[in-house]
């Protein structure tokens, strides 16, 4: 339990928050087991929960069509302390990836609506959480942008060499 509290306090979502406000936020959520292969959420679904990985590993996947067959390709993996499902806190509150446990995992699940209310009540903590999320989202954007540019560079090399 103490390990769980320490892991949440140092997680991508809650780092920088401590004391009674951290307790209040963690009291909003609960831990949940995700057996290997289980789906946490699917692309396009309403996003209602934000998750912090406590134990195990989660794959984030996107569908790709290969020879007219749709397959899920892992585009990112998350481990202990990482946050996922942050679309629940950001309009339009729809999952933009699918998430699946790669091995038996345990996650801490925050209902986004309750979290948003708590952040309105505690603006300093809310600012910290949203700042943490901005770092996560910004990093994702930078990485995807760079990957996209590398693919574009290859396209240029192929078509206009």
């Amino acid at each position, binding site marked *: 339990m103490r390990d769980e509290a320490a892991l949440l306090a140092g997680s991508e979502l809650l780092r920088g928050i401590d004391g009674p406000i951290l307790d209040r936020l963690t009291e909003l959520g609960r831990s949940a087991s995700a057996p290997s292969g289980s789906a946490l959420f699917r692309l396009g679904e309403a996003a209602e929960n934000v998750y912090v990985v406590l134990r195990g590993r989660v794959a984030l996947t996107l569908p*790709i069509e*290969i*020879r007219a*067959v749709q*397959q899920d*390709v*892992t*585009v*990112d993996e998350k481990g202990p302390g990482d946050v996922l499902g942050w679309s629940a806190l950001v309009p339009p509150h729809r999952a933009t990836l699918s998430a699946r446990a790669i091995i038996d995992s345990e996650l801490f699940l925050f209902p986004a609506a309750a979290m948003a209310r708590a952040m309105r009540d505690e603006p300093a903590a809310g600012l910290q959480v949203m700042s943490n999320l901005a770092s996560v989202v910004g*990093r994702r954007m*930078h*990485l995807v942008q*760079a*990957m996209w*540019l*590398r693919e574009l*560079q*290859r396209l240029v090399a192929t078509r206009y060499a």
Partner: protein
Amino acid sequence: MLATVAVIGLVVFVAVVGLALGLGPPDELPAEPRPRPVERPPSAFFVAEKKTEVQMEILLARLEQHVRQERAAVEMFHDDPSAASLRGQTSSPLAN
């Protein structure tokens, strides 16, 4: 005496030949008919399907390896953004 031995010998001979030809005692249940072999479609059909499945798995694994390598490459760019770090090479066969 000789006739008795000849008769016994004949009986034994007939019994041995009968067993050799598969004739059982009259009260033995008839053997169940052997199941007829199930007709299967040409095996090439299954071979082709399995091959496609394996190829798909290999292709998916290759794609995911490519994504991992690309991600590692752009993380270097994220930590130290520059035109050179953006163009860092990987060993992915899908990129070369």
